[in-house]
């Protein structure tokens, strides 16, 4: 190699070295001082790392969560907010209200063009979420792709709520479930109770006046039971993620299902042998009161309400037996969405992620008698909680992980359920 070419090689190497150093320095500078956006929007949220979202959340410093439920839920959600504030330094405020008011407020704000609201996170079930979503009042972001802990939620529940496509703009945080609550001291499972919906009518005929269900328009245990009954009566496939059409609903529910009867004829037949035929308890509470008073021996009831009644001393735990009838009972995965005008969107994401953390999810069965949305969190639930009599005793429901993995897992269809609720007044209550 000549002296000139050696010199040019050295110069070339130095230039290359300086260029590489500059590139590295530049890239380090970019990473060291990330240009965090002033606020999150539908575009930049996908480009940020989770750590950056957390950083932004800390800058926002506050999250306001609107929820609903019983006093048990109110106390639990308030406690969660206190825990979150303590752990993260981000102030979480819980507002206990009614989902209807919350959703109407958001829809009005959307129509009025109010770009910055007061609510960061809303706990909602399917229909209010659908109303808000269709009105454009929901932040149009796939939460499942952003929130790390969302991966533990069952796939269908992540993208559908009561068969309504949520597109992960709503993420479930828990699932309330309805089972058959029976008098354990008088009836033995499986011999003395209707193990399946197939056996229900016969059982009710043999035990007249010992079964009732909540007016479906006054309590969720009533309409969830009727939805489960309809899915058994006409087959789950008739409802599973089907389009809703009123004419189709009319046709379906007036067509023969089991016993050569249509759905309403079946319910009217059942009614003849129910407790005080023609009179339905007006709400979940009124229904379980009849059970507590010893008037009825078998009712469809929320697991959560059963737990709360036992814990408040109104229901004798020795009376409490719970199971899910075959083929199964559908249930809702209720959860949260972020409004379009949430002022603290990053904090809302971080809070939602925290709600889905295994530690918090494992508290849900213990505190309010609902199932966690994140299936694996069930493994962290203490055995003494799982042994309580309000949890279903039959297979596969005893073990949530097994149940969720292998089924049967049915969902409610919000639109057909609403059809049943409305039509029930005409066809059953007035019948």
């Amino acid at each position, binding site marked *: 190699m000549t002296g000139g070419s050696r010199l040019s090689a050295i110069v070339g190497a130095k230039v290359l070295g300086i260029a590489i150093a500059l590139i590295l320095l530049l890239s380090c500078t970019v990473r060291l001082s990330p240009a965090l956006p002033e606020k999150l929007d539908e575009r930049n949220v996908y480009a940020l790392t989770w750590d950056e979202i957390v950083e932004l959340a800390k800058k926002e410093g506050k999250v306001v969560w609107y929820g609903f439920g019983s006093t048990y839920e109110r106390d639990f959600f308030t406690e969660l907010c206190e825990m979150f504030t303590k752990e993260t330094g981000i102030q979480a405020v819980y507002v206990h209200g*009614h989902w*209807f008011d919350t959703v*109407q407020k958001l*829809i*009005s704000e959307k*129509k*009025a063009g109010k770009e910055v609201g007061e609510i960061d996170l809303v706990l909602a079930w399917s*229909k209010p979420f659908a*109303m808000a979503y269709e*009105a454009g009042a929901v932040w149009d972001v796939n939460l499942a792709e952003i929130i790390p802990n969302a991966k533990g939620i069952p796939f269908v529940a992540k993208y559908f709520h009561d068969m309504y496509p949520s597109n992960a703009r709503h993420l479930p945080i828990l699932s309330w479930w309805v089972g058959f609550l029976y008098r354990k001291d008088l009836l033995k499972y499986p011999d003395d109770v209707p193990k399946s919906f197939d056996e229900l009518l016969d059982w009710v005929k043999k035990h007249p006046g010992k079964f009732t269900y909540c*007016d479906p*328009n*006054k309590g969720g245990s009533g309409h969830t039971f009727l939805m489960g009954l309809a899915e058994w009566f006409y087959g789950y496939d008739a409802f599973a993620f089907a389009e809703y059409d009123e004419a189709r609903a009319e046709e379906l529910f007036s067509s023969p299902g089991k016993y050569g009867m249509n759905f309403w004829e079946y319910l009217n037949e059942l009614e003849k042998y129910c407790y*005080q035929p*023609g*009179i*339905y*308890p*007006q709400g979940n509470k*009124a229904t379980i*009161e*009849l059970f507590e*008073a*010893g*008037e009825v021996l078998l009712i469809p009831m929320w697991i959560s309400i059963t737990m709360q009644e036992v814990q408040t001393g109104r229901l004798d735990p020795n009376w409490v037996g719970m199971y899910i009838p075959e083929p199964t009972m559908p249930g809702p995965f209720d959860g949260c969405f972020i409004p379009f005008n949430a002022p603290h969107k990053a904090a809302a994401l971080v809070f939602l992620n925290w709600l889905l953390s295994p530690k918090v999810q494992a508290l849900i069965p213990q505190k309010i008698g609902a199932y966690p949305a994140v299936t694996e969190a069930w493994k962290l639930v203490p055995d003494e909680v799982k042994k309580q009599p309000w949890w279903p005793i039959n297979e596969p429901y005893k073990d949530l992980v097994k149940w969720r993995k292998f089924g049967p897992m049915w969902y409610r269809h919000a639109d057909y359920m*609403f059809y049943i*609720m*409305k039509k029930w*007044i*005409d066809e*059953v*209550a*007035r019948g």
Partner: protein
Amino acid sequence: MKITKEDIISVVFLLPLYAFLSVMVFIPILNVILGSFGISLFGLSMGKVKGPVLDGYLNFVNPSKPYLYSLFFTIYISVIATVISVAAGYLFAIYLTVKRPPIWSKISSIMTIPLFTPYVVGAFMWWTLLFPRGYLAIVINRILMGLGLTKGPIPLVNDPYGIGILFGEVWIRFVISFMIFYGPLQLISQDLVDAARSLGASTWQVILKVYIPLTKYAIVATSAIVLLATMAGISIPLILGGSWPQFLNVMIYLDVTKTFDFISAYTSGVFYLVASAVLGYILFRFTARRIEFQVR
């Protein structure tokens, strides 16, 4: 026509009142009326309905739908509750006026409990008394069965006859009626009663010939107040009523918060407003005329 200074002053003085009436009465009523045609005034969701439409009205007057019968049931039960409350309240006020029991001054405050109890609490209280294991239900049913009037226990709450609603409504309205009647009865001069007595009138004759004629306008006015208040309340029919028939305001509540059928809710609201306005007009008009005559 010349606008005088006095006219302008009176308009200025009354402007806040007009503004108040517009905001608090006119606009909400207009919103309900427009809503019944599927038109949203404040941007509230109307669901999939795009107005103007007559669907709500067609649905309401369709006898196969529950609304028309609900309106009838609401008026029917409200009238019965009003008759019982007004009669009981009036007779109790008369009893206190005529007999003046000394113990009354000590226990009179107990009477006011229903007035200060939230309706929803009162309704739950009655539910626990009247549900099949409630002691009142047990006592009533034992009496009825003992007399051979019924073969088995009859439902006294959440029943299709509105018995539970009547218990709850009368409990509250009776006290209101009594409180309204008690004042006017005390204003009747004792001289009139003494004069009637000196002419040989019995207690019933004093009541029929002295007290009732002098308080008949109070009876009509009280009936109007109680009737309209009973029709408007929701807590009691919601908790003590049955699945069917239902008060129309329970139907509205369910349409709004459960099935999101806003147009039906608005239409029921219009019929409610019309029914209340007609009944209120008849009763108040009658009362106002009579008071006018009395003053003359």
